[in-house]
Structure formats: structure tokens, C-alpha cells
């Protein structure tokens, strides 16, 4: 069963990248994780209240993965992910306001209400989405790495994907290219043990783990327990160094768990997995509680501080709901905007010939 990989060991806590953390930074991770959780909970509530359409894939339970990995990003490191994208979005510094407004389908949303939950973007924060087609982002992530190398920049492309996404072919095509051309891409498999209602063992054949499939492409790979930020950071840092120093790819599988269904519409998520399983994770493996305990133990956090951080996160989430609620809808005219750069910019190219074929 899930999460049999060892939890954080003293090694990981004492990895250089973790040893150098200030108490403030450590509390910041707590805040970052709580912000994701509170944002998601607020979104869930609003979804249930009929404020949004489409799908809502919550990141709750997996917060340590986005926060741990993204916390290591430098100016030339980039992120791309799938449709379960809110955690990564907040992790890279997107505001709750534009994220919540996007869910509400408002003009103030990060994608102007055009992308929705699955399609967040913030290129100014090196965040390239939010992609709805399973594994469709894996070649794009490769392209970010290619672009970095082409431009002579020392960076990495962190490309997140699920345990179900590993069964899309373009991922393997990407692995071959990444290895053959030594591209600094890091594929991070967020293995939450289910792809919709299908458990890992019903979807994938593998030896010891999914990441090991990289071996055949001569790519370094690793597997780790994702519930602890120290572990995630230690393992991710290795991959980032490999990318920055040697321009080599990595496949890093991080075990994690989602508490809610695949999406909010997934009514059967207590059928294809047991309530006990869910409870076990919540009780024993919750990344936020684990980190809280860790910091309390280290003496860098007090219960009062925790509450303060948590309340701030809740308030920020509530405020984002207000922001979204009070934001204007996109205009009907905006339906035809953002299709073509040249049209939007009124260039000669954009004003020559018919671009749209509305009747």
C-alpha cells in the first residue's frame, strides 16, 4: 500500500539546502501550505455553492510537494503542471485573488476567466500552466528546458504530473529526448496512488516504482516520501543541481495523497478506497501537521504562531472569495480576444484577411 517509502530521515533535515533555512523561512513553508489548504477549502465551499462550473481538482493533502519543490526555484527555474494546478500556482506566488476569480469565471481571473480551474497561468512567475490533457504538459516542460539551454541559461524546468499520467506515450518520447539531448527537465511524478478511481496497481506495471521507468532511458531517478518538506527539498535539490550543473534530466517520484476525490464531482472516492485509508493519511501523514510538529519540536514555532498563520491564510482565502464575487464578468466581446496575438495587437498581420468565421 501507499506511502511505504521512508519518511524524513535526519539526513534530509540536515541536507545543506535544509540546514541553511532560517526559522522564518520554515514558518513561511507552513504558511504557504496552509494558504493552499485554505484556498482549496474555500474553493470547495464556493463550488458547492454553485459559484463555479466545470471541474475542481483539489490539491489538499499534497501541499508539501508543491511547496517543497517550488521553494528551491531560482530565477531561471520554471514550472509546468497538469490540471490539479492550484497548489503550484500559489506556491510560485500567484495571488489567491486572481486564482479564485478564475474559478468564478471572472475577468479578473488569472486567465481572464477563459481557462478555469485546470488552466491557470502566470508566465511572469515562470509558471506555464495548468494543462487539462493528461501528460500533455510533459513535452511542453521539455520545451522549457530546451529553451533554457538554447538561451544558455542555467535553469531547470520542473514538470509535474500524476501517477496516472505516466501511461501517456508522449512522456516517454520526452524522456528519450531529455536524456539524448541532456535537457535540464525534472519530471516530478506526484504519486497520490490514484488516477481518478483507479489505484496505482490497476493502472501501471512497474518494477519497484514508476520513476524507475526512467532507468531504461539512462535518466537518473529517485523516489521519496512527500509528506515531509525536508525530504522533498533534499531530493529536489539533487535534481536541480543535476539540471543546473550537468544539464541532465531527472525523474523524481514523490509519494503523496489526496484527501478529496479526484475532482469535487467524484462521488465514489470512498468506494474505490477505504475511509480508513483516508483517515490514516490524515492522521499520520498530513504534511501540514507533520511540518507543524517538526517546527514545534525544533522550537521555531509556537502554537500561537501557528494559529496566527492559519487565521491569516483563512482570511486571505475569504478575501479572495469576496474579490472574486465582486469582480466583473468577462465581456461577451472578450470571447474573440486572446485567440491570436496579431489580432489582439492590431498589427498588419492581425488586420489582414478574415480570422474569425462567426456567422
Amino acid at each position, binding site marked *: 500500500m501507499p506511502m511505504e517509502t521512508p519518511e524524513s530521515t535526519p539526513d534530509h533535515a540536515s541536507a545543506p539546502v535544509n540546514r541553511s533555512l532560517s526559522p522564518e523561512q520554515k514558518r513561511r513553508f507552513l504558511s504557504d501550505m496552509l494558504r493552499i489548504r485554505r484556498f482549496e477549502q474555500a474553493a470547495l465551499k464556493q463550488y458547492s455553492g454553485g459559484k463555479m462550473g466545470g471541474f475542481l481538482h483539489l490539491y489538499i493533502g499534497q501541499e508539501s510537494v508543491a511547496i517543497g519543490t517550488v521553494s528551491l526555484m531560482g530565477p531561471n527555474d520554471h514550472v509546468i503542471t497538469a490540471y490539479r494546478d492550484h497548489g503550484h500556482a500559489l506556491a510560485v506566488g500567484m495571488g489567491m485573488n486572481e486564482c479564485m476569480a478564475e474559478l468564478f469565471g471572472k475577468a479578473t481571473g488569472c486567465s481572464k476567466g477563459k*481557462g478555469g480551474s485546470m488552466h491557470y497561468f502566470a508566465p511572469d512567475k515562470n509558471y506555464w500552466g495548468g494543462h487539462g490533457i493528461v501528460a500533455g504538459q510533459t513535452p511542453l516542460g521539455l520545451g522549457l528546458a530546451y529553451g533554457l539551454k538554447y538561451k544558455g541559461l542555467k535553469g531547470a524546468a520542473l514538470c509535474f504530473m500524476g501517477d496516472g499520467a505516466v*501511461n501517456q506515450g508522449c512522456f516517454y518520447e520526452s524522456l528519450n529526448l531529455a536524456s539524448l539531448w541532456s535537457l535540464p527537465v525534472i519530471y516530478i511524478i506526484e504519486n497520490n496512488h490514484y488516477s481518478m478511481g483507479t489505484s496505482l496497481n490497476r493502472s501501471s506495471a512497474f518494477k519497484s516504482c514508476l520513476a524507475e521507468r526512467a532507468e531504461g532511458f539512462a535518466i537518473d531517478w529517485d523516489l521519496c516520501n512527500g509528506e515531509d518538506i525536508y525530504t522533498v527539498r533534499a531530493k529536489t535539490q539533487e535534481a536541480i543541481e543535476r539540471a543546473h550543473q550537468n544539464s541532465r534530466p531527472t525523474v523524481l517520484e514523490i509519494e503523496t495523497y489526496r484527501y478529496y476525490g479526484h475532482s469535487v464531482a467524484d462521488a465514489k472516492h470512498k468506494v474505490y478506497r477505504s475511509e480508513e485509508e483516508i483517515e490514516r493519511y490524515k492522521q499520520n501523514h498530513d504534511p501540514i501537521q507533520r511540518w507543524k510538529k517538526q517546527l514545534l519540536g525544533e522550537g521555531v514555532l509556537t502554537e500561537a504562531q501557528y494559529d496566527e498563520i492559519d487565521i491569516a491564510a483563512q482570511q486571505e482565502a475569504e478575501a479572495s472569495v469576496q474579490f472574486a464575487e465582486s469582480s466583473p464578468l468577462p465581456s461577451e466581446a472578450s470571447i474573440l480576444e486572446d485567440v491570436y496575438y496579431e489580432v489582439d495587437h492590431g498589427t498588419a498581420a492581425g488586420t489582414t484577411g478574415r480570422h474569425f468565421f*462567426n456567422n
Partner: protein
Amino acid sequence: MPLITYREALRHALSEEIQRDENVVILGEEVAEYDGAYKVTEGLWKKFGDKRVVDTPISEAAFIGMGIGASMLGLRPVMELMFWSFATVAWDQIVNNAGFVRYMSGGLINCPIVIRGPANGGTNVGATHSHTPENMLANIPGLKVVCPATAYDAKGLMKTAIRDNDPVMFMENTLLYGEKWEVPDEEYLIPLGVADLKREGSDVSLIAHGRAALTCLKAAEILAAEHGIQADVLDLRSIRPLDEEAILRTVRKTHRAVLVEENKPFCGVDAQISSILMEKAFDELDAPVLRVSAIDAPAFYSPKIEVKQLPRPEDIVPKVLSLFS
């Protein structure tokens, strides 16, 4: 007649055909233990077991191709695409293998496969999940394409599709799964290539497929009530084969036509219908054949906006009126 949902109608069709023919097997993501992402296959795995109803990993190219290969050996796989949008990752298998294997083998190999799933916008799932590829797939000689609008049609056409010896692309609609229609208990089949005149009028022909046919029915009511215009509403039901006779018949009667579809306009199905009318009904037309399609942009997420992107009765009515001015 009992009222059942579009979803149930499909399920009954699948269930009956599984029972009728041991070569019928259902495959797709979450179709078995999960009962289907949209519950079309609910209960079938329980009823028919592991052999006949099979959950697949998220590998559309491989499992669709696998179904095609198995169909060459005589199986009749009914493959669910959770969304037809995901056909984009299996495009080669569908077009080159399902579409062309019979031709390239000089008729030696048949491919009696059905690929089914929802193909529609309007559910706020964004551009990646709102494809309506009936036009593209009907462009491929070798493929057949069916787009039922009602529970009755869905059942009758699905049963026919499964028995057909050619590859049939069967496009459903998540917005219709929960809608109810009268469906007889007795077995019935609806042939491919037969359109259904869902409403009889005399003044104008509204021609559509899929959910747009229902939108046309609503528009027809408004036209009748508010403008005294009686519209024929012709539901194509199958795109290829196409009931060209029925199209010509209604237009020869009314001499005016508005074509409605939820696809994007450029090279949509209605471009083809329009060009057929141009060629074969030119002298019958008292006014140009007009079209109403989705607004020509990728699907917009925002629920309040996306609803305006697809043809609504209020988009159709003025088009019709313009034909009489």
C-alpha cells in the same frame, strides 16, 4: 412508453448488445469498477464481469489501437473515450488504422469497432475538454460518425453502431445524459444514414445534429408562437452516412434553411451541408442558406460566457427572420 435518460438509453443498448454477442466488449477509463466517469456504463461491470467490461489506464492511443487490433480478429470492442477531446492523443490510431485498414488491405480486414463518448462544449471545462470533432472524422472516408440528440435515438443508433461492420465514431453529449425521453421497452434499431424530422413545418428548414437539434426545436416553438413561422426541424442523427435525401426533401419543401451546429464554423459539418444545398438545391432556394455555429474561439471557461458561445434559440430566431425580410 417509459421515460428514461439518454444515459440509461445508452446503457441499455450496451447491455443488450453485450448479452446478444459474446464478442462485444467494453473498454475505457473508469468504465468498470467506477461505473463510468459519466455513469453511462453504471452497473455493467457488476453484471457482466471483468471480461466484458474493462478499465484501462490513461493510454488512449494504445487502448484504442488495441481495440482496433482486436476488432480485426473479430471482437466488437466498444471503446469509451471519457471525452471525445481525448481522441487528440489517439488520432493516428483512429484515422490511419480504424479509418484506412480496410482500404489499404483491399477489403481483407474489417474493423467493427465503436468509439464512443461525449463530444460537446457548454460544461465549463475549457478548451481542452470541449472538442466536437464530428466534422474532422467525417472527413475521413472509412469512418462513420453518429451524433444522437435524444435517448430514443441514442439507444437505437448505438445498437446499430455495434452491429455495423465498419468503425463508428459515436458522439454523445454530457448535457444530455440526464435528460429524459420516451423509449420503448421492446428492442428497436435505428439505421445510420436516416435523419429524423423532429418537427414538421412548411416555412423554413432548421437542420442540425446533436444537441443543436433540440435547440432548433426550441427556436421553432418561438418562431411559431411569436412570428407565425412554421419550421421543419431535421435532425441529421448520423453525419456519415448522411441522409442527403431528407435534407433535400425539407429544403425543397420550405425553400429556406438555417443550419445549426455546436461545432466551430470553419469547415464544420454545416459547411458541408451548405455546399450540398448549393450544389443540389440552388434553384429551390428563396434565400441563402444561413448557418449558426459556436462562436469562433476556443471554448471559454466562464460559465456565464460559455453559454453564449453555443447556439441558443435566440441566435437562431433572428437568422430565420432575416430570411423573410
